[in-house]
């Protein structure tokens, strides 16, 4: 059964991204791409695994540079016994630099400042303050990834992001440093043509 599912996925991807049809694909300014996916994150300090719903939007200034914004909505931690945050949402804006020659395979690197909004999990205190206080934390992130464009409006993507920051409130501080990975199918249109 598993083999059949894998075969089906391979055939689906092959039909969507017909290799011979991509020879004439050329990245250019005006391409707007959007995608949504689940993302997995691994906090480097607490070793907790977190699950997010991710959405991003980017616009190509030319075949080399795109501006982009990424949003992560925290769903849950994988392990209930290791859950540093009740929630940890984040938003990033910045740029990607595309290393390829504008062809269908589009590797990129980039940098994004961002902001994180979180609340610590599993906290109890005898102090006369609320343990449920939330906090905004500035973060910075770098990313690598690649897109694989179909001729019309689809692309496959794999995106790896490293986030650096620190959650600080009146009870504790907790590292926000995390690797996040996401992959899936995205949409793209040329808004200049």
């Amino acid at each position, binding site marked *: 059964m598993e083999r059949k599912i894998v075969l089906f996925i391979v055939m689906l991807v092959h039909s969507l991204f017909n290799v011979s049809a991509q020879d004439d694909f050329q990245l250019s300014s005006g391409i707007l791409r959007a995608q949504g996916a689940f993302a997995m994150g691994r906090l480097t300090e607490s070793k907790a695994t977190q699950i997010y719903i991710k959405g991003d939007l980017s616009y190509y*200034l*030319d075949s080399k540079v795109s501006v982009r914004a990424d949003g992560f909505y925290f769903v849950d931690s994988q392990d209930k016994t290791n859950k540093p945050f009740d929630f940890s949402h984040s938003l990033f804006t*910045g740029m990607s630099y595309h*290393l390829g020659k504008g062809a269908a395979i589009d590797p990129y690197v980039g940098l994004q*400042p961002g902001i994180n909004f979180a609340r610590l999990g599993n906290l109890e205190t005898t102090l006369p303050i609320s343990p449920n206080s939330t906090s905004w934390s*500035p973060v*910075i992130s770098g990313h690598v990834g690649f897109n694989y464009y179909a001729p019309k409006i689809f692309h496959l993507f794999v995106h790896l992001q490293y986030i650096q920051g620190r959650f600080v*409130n*009146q009870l504790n501080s907790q590292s926000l440093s995390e690797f996040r990975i996401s992959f899936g199918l995205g949409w793209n249109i040329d808004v200049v043509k």
Partner: protein
Amino acid sequence: MKNLLLLTLGIIITVSHNSLSQDVHESNFMIMRCATKPATVKTFSQDPGMFELGVRSTASLFGDAGNHGLGAGGQFRIRFHRQIGSEWFADYIVTDIDGVGKREDVHIGWSVMFYPFKSDSRRFSPYLLAGHCFDYTKVTSYGVSALPNFKSERWSSAIQMGVGTHFNLNQWSDISLSVQYMTHLGNDIHTEIVEENGLRYLTISDHSHGASLEGHLLATMSFNVKIGRLWKGK
């Protein structure tokens, strides 16, 4: 923080290596096409009146308490002359004070940038900057709300000076790195970590009388996009 510095360095080296070996493509950025005349191929515009928007990350280093903070914010730039520009910014910076307190800084200000080199055909465009900002600071001591001064806040003014450089990615965008020293001209919030009976906590004293020259080093990385020219000039 080391990981991030290595990652940033790696990305900048990769980008510079890649982009220095390629021609600059003329962009068809829609906003630019509507708002400005197209720039000449292979130049990085230094036209007066150019308006840019950007996002930025700021690291606060070697401050009064010796702790490092990280901030995020935004900025816009207006170029007055081929060699003189301005940057108008807002930053929110959070610093963890040795696990016993939190410092929050909000900077809203402006800097004048002087470009000593006229060439607009270079990838790197170094500059000197100096300016002024308004500054809100709040320091909170963790978990010791029983203390009379467990938190303190102030508004003050500050001046800053530094150096930086743009790295032009293409005609319409750049990554900028700058380092500046910011000196606060208002009241000082003095903090001290005290250890008693094995407990560490932060004491805060608000020096509300007389100005003090408290300062910190700020390292800023920003990404900027040229939106269009506000006016046409030589």
